[in-house]
Structure formats: C-alpha cells, structure tokens
C-alpha cells in the first residue's frame, strides 16, 4: 500500500512538473489569429472557418492550462497556430486572385478601347 502511494505521488509530480505552461506558443497563436483577422480572414468563408477553429482551440488550450494539463494544451495550441496560419494564407490567396481578376478585366477593357 505504501509503494502504491509513492508511485501515485511520483506520477502526480511528473504530471505537474513535466510540462511548463506553453505561454510563449499561446501568445504566438493569439498574435497569428489577430494577424489573420487584419488580413481579412473573417470575411472569406474558407478562411473564416479556420479562424474560428483557431479561436476555439485557443480557448480550449486556456482551459487546459487552467486545469494544469499543459502537455495537451501545447498540442491544442499547435493546432490553433496551424489554423490561424492557414486562415491568413487563404485570405491572402483570395484577395490575390480577386486582384488578378480585376487587373485582367481592366487590361481587357483597355485593349478593347485601344483597338476601337
């Protein structure tokens, strides 16, 4: 019975002390979410989905940290970071494509005018 208690205590200490609070990566993920929002991710459906996922996972990670589960929190933050990065990339892709289409239309208009 004494051995069992000892094992239990050791396991508890390892769980608590094994992983530090992933504060740095959490801050980075939050910054990326803010960056994606500035980049227009909220107004592009595909990007908005990943922005939402990123935010949800940050909330989840914060709850996990409160519960002391830093290890899982770190993995959830990795997910959040990946979604935030993707949200920004998708927003930029859409705006680049829109700009290209716009330029193409202007060019065609100009060419049409030039041949008149």
């Amino acid at each position: 019975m004494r051995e069992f208690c000892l094992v239990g205590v050791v396991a508890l200490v390892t769980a608590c002390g094994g992983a530090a609070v992933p504060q740095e990566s959490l801050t980075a993920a939050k910054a990326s979410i803010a960056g994606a929002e500035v980049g227009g991710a909220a107004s592009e459906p595909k990007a908005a989905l990943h922005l939402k996922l990123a935010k949800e996972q940050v909330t989840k990670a914060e709850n996990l940290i409160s519960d002391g589960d830093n290890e899982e929190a770190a993995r959830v933050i990795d997910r959040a970071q990946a979604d935030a990065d993707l949200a920004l990339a998708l927003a930029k892709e859409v705006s680049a494509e829109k700009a290209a289409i716009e330029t193409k239309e202007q060019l065609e208009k100009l060419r049409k005018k030039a041949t008149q």
Partner: protein
Amino acid sequence: MKNGFNRIALFTLLSQAVLACATPMPPQELLDARTAYDVATKSSAPQYAPAQLDTAKQSLARAEQSFQDNGDEPVTKDLAYVADRRAKLAAAEGSREQAERARAQMDKDFKSTEIDALETTKSKLEHEQRARAEAEKGLADAQKKLSLAMASLAEIAKVKEESRGVVITLSGSVLFATGKSALLPIAQEKLSEVAKALNDQGFKSLLVEGHTDSQGSADKNMVLSQERAESVRTYLISQGIPSDKIKAQGIGSSRPVADNSTAEGRANNRRVEIVVEPLGK
C-alpha cells in the same frame, strides 16, 4: 462438423483482430493530411511555394512517424491535424504567388498598352491638328481669293448680298445699245472680268436676269430682256463659265428697282443681274 466450423470462424476472427492490432487504421486526421499533401504537390505549390510545401512534407512525416510509434493516439491526430493545415497552406501560398505574378505581368501589359494607346492618340491628334491647320489655311486662301474677287467685281459692278445669293448688277447702258441685245465692246471687257472673278471664287450656279424699264410694250420688253440675258450667258460661257451651271431668264419690266418716271430711274432699271449661288449652300 458444426463444432469444426465454429472453430474455423473463431480462428479467422482472431487472426483478423491480431492483424488489425498490428496495423491499426490510420485516424481520419492522418488520411486528411495525406490527401491535402497530395493535392498540394499537384498544385502550383512546388513551383511557387516550395519552402511551405517542404514544411508540410516534414509535418506529414512527423505525423506518419507518430502513427508508426503511437498508433492513433491523440498525439498522432494532433500532428496529422497540423500537417493537414500545413499542406493546405502550401497550396494556398502557391496559388497566391501565382496570382500575384500573373497580376504583376498584367500590370506591366496594362502599362505598355496604355503607353501604346497614348502614342496612338497622340499621333492621331497630331494628324488631326495638321489636317485642321491645312483646312484652315485652305479656307483662309479661299476667303482671300473671294474677297479679292469681290473687290475687283465691285470696281465694275454693284455687288450686294441678298437672300437668293450674291447679286451682281450691271447697268444696261454699259452693256447694250438702246433696243439691242448685242453686247458692246466695253461690256465684253467688263463681263470678262466678271467671269474671271466668278471662276476664281467658285460658285454653285449662276442665274442671269435681264431687266428693262417700263417704256415700250411689256411683250417686247420681255423678249428683249430674255435676249439680253441670253447674250450675257453666252458670253460668260465663252469666258469659261460651265454652261450647265448658268441659266438665263428675261424678267422684262416687272421688277423695277427705281422710279420709271425719271430718266435716272429708268437707267437704273435697265440692267442685267447675275445671281450667284455660292458654294456650300
């Protein structure tokens, strides 16, 4: 026999279970990540976002390794989830870069087309300007010629503008002997100058009208005025006026311009009028 079958079935089930344990099914996240990476390699990412694609590759490799080591544990799912996003990011970055390059090229094309269009407009404008200057010069020349012609006409005849055109009035006494329709020599000289002035200034058509005073019978006056108009017409044709552009008409005494009761008035009424329909009317 029944027992034997059950045993075989049990063995089959067991061996399948063992096999399933040895190679567990990959989690959905890993399947998604593989698909996403496959899609990315077939997109414009290899050409335009090779660094991001490489990151995605490494990310997928970590997920695959975790799957080998840990099976479908949450850690594998998390790594696969991240790998899926990295692959999609590479594809997105690839098409963004491609779109931006295409746009940059079109921008260049736009500018050069714009410059071409400007050049075309410029040369068109210059051409128009030259044409206008030439036309203006031509017009000025014509006007100068016209005013010179009018000035020389004014020296030998009365010229006035009426609604029917420019009317050149030649006094009958200068042109004809009394009762005759043959032109006097001095008249021929004058008419030569008139013809020259008319040819110089150009015109659409000419109408020669003969007028008399009210002395004598109206019939005779009508015949005389017709003959006189004809003789002026004939002479003008001989001086180069195209015959299809000139007509003659006898008016007789019906349109006096002065009082027929005085000698001076009658002299003014005896006249030939040349009505000029100007060009461009």
